[in-house]
């Protein structure tokens, strides 16, 4: 069957709709080839060109192969696959002639929709998915049922609506499985923390409003100054950059109850670390402890993932610092920043107590010329010196690096910690959303008897950054949320829109908890609540039962099955007594009406007919006389039936056993 013009037009629309969201993944060459194919198709649609010449198809094919070769080495498997499919999608389109070709193009379209879902998880994506599936299905439907657009849309909608109940059922009931093979981690460049930090780097993150994670707590949500999400510990400083080195730390300090449980729903970062509160632990098999009292992924997930964690309420008793760790935490570059070193040595001589030395540093930060800005002036070659004594303007990473540098020079083991600080409360106050602009750097110093203590010098300079959160503190700064996908900051003055953003976060949070996060455990919990525990037999039975009920409903709706209609009482009684008559060979002939039956019996078996006659008359008036007294007629009929039944039984018992079952015909007159 040839593809109709309507189907072609519809296919073009759906192809564009499917490719648009995928275009960031596709290479420019892929897009160019696809565009050429689609343009040709538009030409065919408007009757400007006919089938593509062989030369064009072949050269496009060769170009596609070359493109694939050129990208295969630079990309991970999934991205290369996406490009391959997009190319096939385009090339197959230009030679779509019959319904078979059309089906192949449409199947590829479904797969491309799936590929797009791999790295987007919002509830809007689900809506987009359903719409795209509907749009992609339409060309097939239209080629079997040419209709006007409105009627066609209605038919497609019907198809989708009929399909949704089973989808929901399968989603809830089909057991979730563990990954079947291990995937390589795609190295996708994303905004986020990295394991090395130059002094001016975190400011870039404050330009982004990308979601990092959402956190919910059993019990009260911690106060803003407690919301420090530790992700990375940077120990090595070469005068320009801080780097994470292998932390030589013995086993972690054991945590002790009471614990406060909390849950994180994390966007995929494709990194091993995840930001957690201090003193956190987890039973989740996907997580493992990292040195420095942190947690990390065993395999970084590629999708939105939720994990359950525990935070010990009391700090563990610190163990004495091992010599290697101490060395690491005191390491400094051999030279550079002489002024800072001099100040540190001065502090060391001035104060005996390390706490006092730290306090002195913070005191200096609090004093006037230091200011907090996301657009600090350029630093000289000796960065710490330049910041401390020259520019005196910067943001968290400047202050934190300076503090760690000076503390180390002053003989206090110290380290730089990066992660996120703060988080925005959802509109119902039940969860925190942490965005990239919450990125923060602070320091931890080792104090005898207290262990590692968090010191946030930013809190000394700009306390509102910590207390009110990044939104409030940074909103006035140029560049803050500059790369946001929606210009939310302009909406700040409109409380409505700001609230809308909050509610969108709420929807997204519930979505990721209940839909994206619907994993084996959540499914198991559902089983526990509804069915008292999961086992394969029960699951099979429930799934089978549910599908059976659904199939039954569908069968009824499609006319495959009809509910038996219950006949009126009179008819049932009459039929029953007819069966009794049949058993003795006096039943009606096929198609014989009651009166005809009666008349025949009156000739052949007058005795029997005399008792059958009242039943017959009562039955007929019950059925066909609307004026009769139904109750009385019914009672009379039942009495008559009883009499006849007794008569037949008596008759029957007098017949020898051998002749039972067939009533002897009366002798012919």
């Amino acid at each position: 069957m040839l593809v109709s013009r309507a189907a072609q037009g519809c296919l073009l629309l759906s192809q564009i709709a499917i490719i648009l969201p995928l275009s960031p993944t596709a290479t420019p060459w892929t897009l160019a080839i696809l565009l050429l194919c689609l343009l040709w198709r538009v030409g065919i649609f408007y009757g400007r060109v006919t089938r593509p010449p062989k030369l064009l198809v072949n050269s496009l094919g060769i170009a596609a192969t070359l493109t694939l070769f050129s990208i295969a080495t630079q990309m991970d498997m999934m991205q290369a696959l996406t490009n391959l499919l997009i190319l096939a999608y385009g090339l197959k389109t230009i030679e779509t002639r019959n319904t078979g070709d059309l089906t192949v193009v449409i199947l590829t379209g479904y797969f491309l929709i799936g590929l797009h879902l791999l790295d987007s998880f919002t509830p809007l994506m689900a809506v987009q998915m359903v719409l795209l599936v509907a749009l992609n299905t339409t060309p097939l439907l239209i080629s079997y049922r040419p209709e006007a657009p409105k009627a066609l849309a209605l038919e497609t909608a019907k198809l989708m609506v009929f399909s949704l109940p089973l989808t929901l059922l399968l989603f809830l009931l089909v057991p979730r499985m563990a990954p079947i093979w291990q995937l390589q981690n795609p190295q996708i460049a994303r905004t986020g923390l990295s394991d090395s930090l130059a002094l001016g780097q975190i400011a870039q993150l404050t330009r982004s409003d990308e979601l990092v994670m959402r956190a919910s707590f059993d019990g009260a949500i911690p106060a803003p100054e407690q919301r420090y999400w530790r992700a990375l510990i940077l120990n090595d400083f070469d005068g320009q950059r801080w780097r994470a080195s292998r932390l030589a730390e013995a086993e972690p300090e054991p945590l002790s109850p009471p614990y406060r449980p909390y849950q994180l729903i994390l966007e995929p970062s494709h990194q091993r670390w995840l930001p957690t509160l201090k003193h956190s632990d987890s039973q989740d098999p996907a997580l493992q402890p990292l040195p420095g009292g942190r947690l990390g992924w065993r395999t970084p997930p590629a999708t939105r993932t939720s994990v359950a964690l525990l935070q010990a309420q009391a700090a563990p008793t610190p163990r004495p610092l091992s010599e290697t760790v101490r060395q690491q935490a005191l390491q400094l570059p051999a030279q550079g920043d002489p002024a800072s070193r001099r100040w540190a040595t001065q502090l060391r001589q001035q104060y005996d107590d390390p706490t006092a030395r730290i306090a002195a540093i913070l005191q200096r930060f609090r004093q006037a010329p230091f200011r907090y800005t996301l657009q600090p002036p350029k630093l000289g070659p000796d960065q710490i010196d330049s910041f401390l004594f020259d520019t005196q303007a910067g943001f968290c990473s400047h202050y934190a690096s300076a503090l760690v540098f000076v503390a180390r020079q002053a003989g206090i083991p110290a380290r730089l910690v990066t992660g996120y600080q703060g988080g925005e409360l959802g509109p119902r106050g039940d969860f925190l959303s942490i965005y990239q602009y919450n990125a923060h750097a602070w320091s931890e110093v080792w104090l005898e008897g207290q262990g590692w203590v968090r010191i946030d010098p930013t809190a000394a300079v700009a306390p509102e950054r910590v207390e009110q959160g990044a939104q409030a503190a940074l909103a006035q700064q140029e560049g803050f949320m500059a790369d946001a996908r929606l210009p939310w900051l302009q909406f700040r003055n409109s409380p409505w829109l700001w609230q809308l953003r909050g509610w969108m976060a709420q929807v997204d949070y519930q979505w990721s908890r209940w839909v994206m996060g619907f994993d084996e455990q959540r499914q198991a919990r559902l089983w526990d609540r509804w069915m008292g525990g999961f086992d394969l037999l029960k699951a099979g039975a429930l799934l089978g039962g549910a599908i059976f009920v659904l199939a039954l409903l569908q069968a009824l709706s499609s006319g495959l099955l009809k509910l038996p209609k219950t006949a009126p009482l009179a008819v049932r009684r009459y039929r029953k007594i007819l069966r009794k008559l049949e058993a003795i060979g006096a039943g009606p002939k096929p198609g014989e009406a009651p009166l005809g039956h009666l008349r025949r019996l009156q000739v052949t078996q007058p005795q029997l007919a005399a008792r059958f006659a009242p039943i017959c008359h009562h039955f007929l008036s019950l059925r066909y006389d609307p004026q009769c007294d139904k109750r009385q007629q019914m009672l009379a009929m039942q009495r008559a039936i009883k009499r006849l039944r007794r008569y037949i039984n008596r008759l029957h018992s007098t017949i020898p056993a051998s002749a039972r079952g067939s009533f002897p015909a009366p002798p012919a007159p």
Partner: protein
Amino acid sequence: MRVPRLVRSLYLRWLRRRLPAAPRQVLSHRNIFILPSKSGALFLGMTAVLFLLGTNYQNNLVLALAFLLFSLFNTSILMAFRNLAGLTLASGQAHHRHAGEPIPFDLSVSSARPLFQLHLKYEDGPLRRINRVLAQETQVQLLHPSERRGVLKPGRIRIESRYPLGLCRVWSHLDLAQSALVWPAAEPGPVLSQHSEQHVGSEPARSREGLDDFQGLARWQPGQSRARIAWKQWAQSGQLQVKQFVAPQGAPTHVTLHPGSPIELALSAVAAELTRLHHQGVPFALALGAQRFAPEHGSAHLKRCLDGLARYRSSD
């Protein structure tokens, strides 16, 4: 796809028992079969790959897509079934043709619910597409090839549909108890034909109503053309009369099978001769063994004679 003969004959025997022949049949779950088409199998395979992808990436949205596509397949099975259920087929008139020509069979199709894209076909015949079947009965002609003369039973009609998405094939094989006569192919050959020329002198020539010669007058009856009223006679006698004309008719030709040639060839030759005589307007008579067709002319007579030829010593 070739089906082994044994399987095929078993299937046909089972079909005979399950779906006996009847001139009017309504499709329902008793006589509708459904299987996924090739596209459907591809579709299911792709859904399975999406399911694996979703499982491997632990991505619930991709899993949801796989489930949605599976449900779509399920819905398409139901809608495919609904697209045949309720279709009423009734056999209509059979047309008789010469062997070698395709034999048209009339059917009427109707359905209370509109049905789309039905393909009707006899096993060996060409495909007939029906885009839409509505509640009103529609006449459809289906062709069946004919090879030899005799009674042709076209056998089962395959009614197939791939609506709505082409993912499943729903079909039924119905026997509408149709039959048609296949006349012998008209191939000129030796025929025994006898013109009754010798009677020309003794017997008045036969004639039929025509325009050539005036034959006489008859009483006018209401409804007859006024152009033919003989006004002159009316003026004389006062009675309305019409003029009657006739065309002269040749003497009838008596045709018989040529005893020398093989029976099928002889029948073909007779069929050709009768057709020729019919076109020339010559009345003819036919003798087939014991059967006699009296001299007569006209299409109906030709048909009767050809039917006789088709049935002559035919096995069924």
